[in-house]
C-alpha cells in the first residue's frame, strides 16, 4: 500500500538565496525524477521546482524509513546540504494531500491567488508522466488538486484583484481607456521597472509604443526589445501630446515632468485623458500634475498602496478558499477510504458468484430435459439471489467505511467471516459503483461521483 508524502522547502522556510541553491534546473528534472524514483520504497514521484519552492510529491511504501531516504536522495550532492536540510519540511498522508491542494490553489504562494503556480504544477505533473514516474496514487490526487484549484478560482475572489505594480498599472489604464489596443504608450527613461511595466502593457494589447531617453543608445535598445520606436529627448513635449499612457522610470534626481508642462500639453490635447505611471524613485512627475483635469497620476507609493489593499483582500478571501480546500480534502479522503474496502468487496462477490454458479450447475445436471431457455432462467435465478443477498451487506460495508476511519476492521471481519483470501486486481472505482441491486438481477453500472 502507498502513502502520499511531500518533502521540500518554500518561501515560508527558506530565504531567496537558499531557494536559489535548491532550485533544480529544467534540464536536470528528468534525471532527478529517475534518481528519486529509484530510491527503494518509492513507487511514484513528481518534482515541482519554481522560484518560490522546490518540492517532491511521492507515493511511498508504508515504511518510516522511506521519507528519510528520499530526503537524503534530494540533498545528495547539493552544496550547503546541512542548511538546506534545516529548511526542509515533510508532510505525509492527509497533511501531504492538504499541502498539494493548497499549493495548486495558490493559497501557499508568496502572492496568494497568483495564477502561475497552477501551470507550474501541471508542467511538473506532465514531466513526471512523461518520465514514467507517475502511478495510480499521483494519477488520482494531482488531477483532483487541479479541480480544487479551479473551484477556488471560480468560487472565491482570491485571484480577482491585481497583485503587482505592473498589473495594477495595466488595470488602471483599462479603467480610464477601456480597450488598450489602439493606445499610444510613451516610456520615459529606460529603467528596469519601466521595461517590465511596458511589457505588461504590450501583453494587454498596446501596439503603439514610443521610448524617449536622455541616452539615445539605451532608448534604441529598449525600443528594440519592446517592439517600439526610440525618440530623442527633445521630442518629449511632442510625444506627450500624442501619448495616452506615459510610463516614467528615469534616474533623474528631480521631476522631469512638471505641472506647467502638462498644462500646456493638455491644451493641445483638447482635454484628452492622460495617464501617468510614475515608477521612478525619486519621482519623475510632479505630484501637482495629478490635480489637472483629465490627468491621472499614480506614483510608486500609490501603486504599491493599491497592491497592498488588494493583497489584504486576497488574504481575507484565502480563508474562505481554505474552507473549500478542507471540504475537497474530506471528499477525497472519504473516497480513498471507500477504495480501501474494494478488494474485500471483490472477493466477496467472487465467492458468492462461484457458489451460485456451482449450485446452478448442480441443479441443471438433475434437469436433463431442460431447454436452453430453462437453463438460462436457472442461472439468472442463482445470480439474482446472490445479488439480492449481497446488496444490503455491501451497501452497509461501504457506508461504514465512509463513516468510520477504522474501516479496515470492518473489512478484516468480513474477510474472516467469509474466509476470503485470494488476491484480486481491477478497477477500484468501478467496483464501488458496481453494486448489486436488490431489485434487479442485473448489476447497475455507473460512474463514481468523486
Amino acid at each position, binding site marked *: 500500500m502507498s502513502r502520499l508524502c511531500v518533502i521540500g522547502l518554500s518561501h515560508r522556510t527558506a530565504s531567496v538565496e537558499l531557494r536559489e541553491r535548491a532550485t533544480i534546473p529544467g534540464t536536470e528534472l528528468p534525471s532527478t525524477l529517475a534518481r528519486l524514483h529509484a530510491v527503494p520504497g518509492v513507487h511514484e514521484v513528481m518534482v515541482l521546482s519554481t522560484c518560490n519552492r522546490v518540492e517532491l510529491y511521492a507515493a511511498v511504501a508504508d515504511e518510516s524509513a522511506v521519507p528519510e531516504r528520499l530526503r537524503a536522495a534530494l540533498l545528495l550532492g547539493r552544496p550547503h546540504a546541512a542548511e538546506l536540510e534545516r529548511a526542509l519540511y515533510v508532510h505525509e498522508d492527509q497533511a501531504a494531500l492538504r499541502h498539494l491542494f493548497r499549493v495548486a490553489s495558490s493559497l501557499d504562494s508568496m502572492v496568494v491567488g497568483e495564477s502561475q503556480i497552477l501551470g507550474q504544477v501541471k508542467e511538473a505533473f506532465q514531466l513526471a508522466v512523461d518520465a514514467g514516474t507517475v502511478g495510480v496514487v499521483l494519477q488520482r490526487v494531482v488531477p483532483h488538486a487541479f479541480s480544487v484549484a479551479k473551484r477556488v478560482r471560480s468560487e472565491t475572489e482570491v485571484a*480577482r*484583484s491585481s497583485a503587482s505594480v505592473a498589473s495594477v498599472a495595466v488595470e*488602471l489604464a483599462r479603467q*480610464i*481607456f*477601456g480597450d488598450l489596443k489602439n493606445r499610444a504608450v510613451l516610456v520615459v527613461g529606460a529603467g528596469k521597472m519601466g521595461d517590465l511595466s511596458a511589457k505588461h502593457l504590450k501583453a494587454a494589447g498596446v501596439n503603439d509604443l514610443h521610448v524617449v531617453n536622455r541616452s539615445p543608445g539605451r532608448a534604441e535598445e529598449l525600443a528594440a526589445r519592446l517592439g517600439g520606436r526610440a525618440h530623442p529627448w527633445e521630442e518629449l513635449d511632442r510625444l506627450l501630446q500624442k501619448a495616452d499612457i506615459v510610463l516614467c522610470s528615469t534616474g533623474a534626481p528631480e521631476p522631469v515632468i512638471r505641472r506647467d508642462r502638462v498644462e500646456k500639453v493638455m491644451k493641445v490635447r483638447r*482635454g484628452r485623458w492622460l495617464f501617468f505611471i510614475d515608477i521612478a524613485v525619486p519621482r519623475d512627475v510632479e505630484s501637482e500634475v495629478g490635480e489637472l483635469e*483629465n490627468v*491621472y497620476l499614480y506614483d510608486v507609493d500609490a501603486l504599491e498602496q493599491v497592491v497592498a489593499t*488588494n493583497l489584504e483582500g486576497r488574504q481575507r478571501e484565502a480563508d474562505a478558499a481554505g474552507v473549500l480546500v478542507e471540504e475537497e480534502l474530506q471528499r477525497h479522503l472519504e473516497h480513498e477510504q471507500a477504495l480501501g474496502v474494494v478488494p474485500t468487496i471483490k472477493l466477496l462477490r467472487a465467492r458468492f458468484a462461484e457458489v451460485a454458479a456451482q449450485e446452478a450447475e448442480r441443479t441443471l445436471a438433475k434437469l436433463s430435459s431442460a431447454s436452453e431457455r430453462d437453463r438460462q432462467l436457472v442461472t439468472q435465478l442463482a445470480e439474482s439471489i446472490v445479488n439480492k443477498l449481497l446488496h444490503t451487506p455491501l451497501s452497509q460495508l461501504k457506508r461504514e467505511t465512509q463513516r468510520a476511519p477504522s474501516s479496515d476492521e470492518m473489512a478484516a471481519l468480513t474477510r474472516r467471516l467469509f474466509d476470503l483470501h485470494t488476491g484480486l486486481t481491477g478497477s477500484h472505482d468501478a467496483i464501488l459503483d458496481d453494486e448489486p441491486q436488490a431489485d434487479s438481477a442485473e448489476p447497475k453500472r455507473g460512474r463514481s461521483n468523486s
Partner: protein
Amino acid sequence: MPPLFPVTLVLHSVACTLYLVHVLWRAEAPNQKLGLVAWIVLALAFASQAADIAWLCMRGLHPVANAREAVFFGAWLMCGAYLAATWRRRLPVVGALVAPAALVLDVATRLVPSQEIAHAGSTLGTLGMVHIALATTGIALFGVGAGSAVAYIVAERRLKGKRKVVMGAGASLETLDRLNRRCITLGFPIFTVAMVTGAMWAAQLPGVGVFTPQYAIATAAWLLYAGLLLLRLLAGWRGRRAAFITLAGFVSAATVMMIYVVRGAA
C-alpha cells in the same frame, strides 16, 4: 391600471435589485454574469411595459394624452435607450442608475390620479402632441446621459482618490463619456424641435403665452446642452465638466416635466 403593470413592476424591481447588488454589494469584484442577467430582466420589463402602453393606447390613453402618460412613456423610453446603448457592451453601473429612476417614475405616474381625460388629442392638437412626444423622447435620452454622467463622476473620483483597483471593475471613463456624448448629441436635436413646437403650440393656446416659468427652465436646459455640445466640439470638453453640465441640464429638463405632472394631478 394597465393589466401587465404588476408584472412590469416585479421585473423592474428584480432588475434594479440585480443592478444594485452588482454595483454595491460586489463593488470590489463585479460579476459580469449578474450584469447580463440584470440586462435581460430589464429587457423583459421593457417588453411588458410596451404591452401596457399599447393597451393604454387602445383605450385612448396614448403616451401624449396627458403628462402622466408622457412620464410613463418617458420612463419606458429611457429603459429602451439604455438597453439599446448597452446592447453590445453592458454597462451595469449606468443600469444601476437608469433602472431605479425609471422604476420610481413608473410607480409615481400610476399613483398620480389622472385628471386629464382620454382622447386629449382633440384638445392638444397635432402640435401639442408632437411637442410632448419629442420633449419626452429628448428627456429620456438626457436621462441615460445623466446616468452615465453620475457613473463617470463616481468612477473618476475613485481613480483620482487612488482607491482599490480590481480586475474588470465596470466601464472605463472613456466609455462612460462616449455614452454621455451620444445621448446628448441624439437627444439635443429632438429636444430643440420640441422647444420650437412647444413655443408654437403655447402661442396658439389662449391665455397661456410662451413666457412661462416652465419654458424659461426648459430654455435653460436647452442652453446648457447647446453650450456643452459646442464646447465639446470646439474646445474638446469632456469628462467631469461635461458630466456636471449634463446633470444640470437633465435636472432642468426633468423639472419642467415634473411641473406638468404635478399640475395635471392637482
